[in-house]
């Protein structure tokens, strides 16, 4: 996998923990930016969460926002400058808890932006508390012994797929298959560039630090996630 040319070289290696899935998602996004030739037109808008560590990740105009607020900032940027290609990058807490209202309404209004959400089943930046994506009986910092978890976690892309006029691009990929994830990201951004409206990609990701897993354990955990969260492009009826 070649190093994307839109990387800001002086900030590499990046600030993520070793083995972090964010690095893989960002690499795929970097390659997508290169391959679509949008380095000069792209605006990268990031949430608070471990995504903030990417504030100087690319040689791409970037703005770091507040927790849960990257979607409305992205919307404002796109409304203010429709020629820019606006990519919002958020964690699952930022997208599905504190920022859910803005995610859904941006889809409802068919805002012409792309949102990429990293699902690692928890709030990584604050030390691994439960998120709306925490799986049943998963142990996190705020679900000791796997208590206090939801019976069924939030299915973000499926939820968003129910919104609006149906002409949305929605997909769920995984860092276990980076090339497919990149394909989804490119399709999402292309959807925006063609003026077709809201696009949304969830990326299943790895957080060895808060999962307390080694390399093997991380991929086993990711496998369990992939059983709970179906991979693929998601249609309005929720099917992949």
């Amino acid at each position, binding site marked *: 996998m070649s190093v994307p040319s839109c990387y800001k070289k002086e900030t590499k290696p990046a600030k993520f923990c070793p083995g972090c899935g964010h690095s893989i998602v960002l690499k795929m996004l970097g390659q997508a930016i290169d391959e679509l030739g949008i380095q000069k037109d792209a605006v990268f808008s990031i949430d608070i969460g471990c995504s903030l560590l990417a504030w100087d990740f690319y040689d791409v105009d970037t703005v770091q926002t*507040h927790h849960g607020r990257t979607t409305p900032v992205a*919307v404002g940027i796109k409304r*203010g400058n429709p020629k820019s290609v606006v990519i919002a990058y958020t964690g699952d807490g930022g997208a599905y808890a504190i920022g859910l209202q803005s995610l859904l309404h941006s889809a409802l209004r068919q805002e012409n932006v792309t949102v990429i959400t990293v699902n690692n089943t928890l709030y990584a930046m604050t030390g691994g508390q439960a998120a709306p994506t925490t799986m049943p009986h998963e142990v996190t910092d705020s679900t000791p012994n796997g208590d206090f978890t939801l019976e069924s976690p939030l299915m973000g892309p499926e939820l968003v797929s129910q919104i609006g006029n149906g002409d949305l691009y929605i997909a769920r990929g995984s860092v276990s298959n980076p090339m497919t994830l990149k394909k989804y990201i490119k399709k999402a951004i292309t959807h925006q560039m063609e003026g077709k409206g809201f696009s949304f990609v969830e990326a299943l990701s790895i957080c060895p630090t808060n999962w307390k897993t080694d390399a093997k354990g991380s991929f086993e955990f990711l496998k369990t996630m992939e059983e709970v969260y179906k991979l693929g492009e998601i249609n309005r009826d929720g099917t992949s």
Partner: protein
Amino acid sequence: MNKVLAIGNEVVVEAAIDAGASMFCGYPITPSTEILAGWAKRADVDKDLVFLQTEDEIAAGFATIGGILAGKKAWTASAGPGNILMQDSLAMAEAMRIPIVTYIAQRGGPSTGTVIFSQQELFLTAHGGNGEGMRIVYSPGNLQELYDYTFKAFDAAWRYRFPTFILSDGYLGKTFGEVIYHKGKTIDAKPMLQDKERIEKGEYVNIRNCYSLEDELAEVLNKDIEDFHKMSPKIVEYEELYCGDAELIVFAHGSVAEAVKAAVSMAREQKMKVGLFRPITLRPLPKEAMIKAVRKAKKIMVIEAAHGQFAKLVRDALFGATQAEYYSYFKPAEGIVPEEALEKIQEVL
């Protein structure tokens, strides 16, 4: 120059457009809704104006910021509970030196409260964030000033890059009367993101407000504080009435000061030695002028439609500078008419 008959909320929209505003994001709340609806009607006709009604005030504030980053002169308007929700975005604007303009029609509170008279959002507006309140707050008193200071707010915000507010109320927004629209010169907005000239040189910006080191943040913050202090003498504005020989100086702001102005004029006809000092910028406050004004005064009185928010600012500014006796008349979230202000002046003198 153009003399018209207009209602306060229309005047605000007109002033914003004259000042070059090109984008508005908001969420309806009385008594600022007419600003949102008024802008929508203008944007419906003029396709260069961007309008977005968001899902809430949090999104309104952040989408406004997005527009500003993209190079628009974007602004918003809110009130009471909406002002509370907007503090999230306003704190970010303050941290990133984003020149956002916000019109606040104060509501009586706490909570849902009332919608006509109030001066209770002074602290929230000036200091509502987790920061130092590096903000500019104008308090207009009448229709003409509503136009003048809304216009000025855009100029100040884009010139000095601090969040700038027009602190008003429902009463002023509903006031009908004569106004002169005298479109002046305005400063251009430049994009902070996607500045093509810069990008063509191969330069990209990475803007943040999150720091891992305390000294990194301190450096940014100290610079902002220094800039704010440097700007202050250039921006402070006030109005003085009969302060020269006054034994009693009344401090008031906004539409309450209009009532006090009338009361002071009546008192002067009765040969009472009373003056009015009215800061127009509540932040920064015209501290030196305030100290000068009270030099000969034996008494000072603060009149406001809040329980001492403005009075705290006044006392802080005058601390150690006067021996004058201190009086106050507080009517949180109620209107104050000239006759009752005159009565209070008579009681004190």
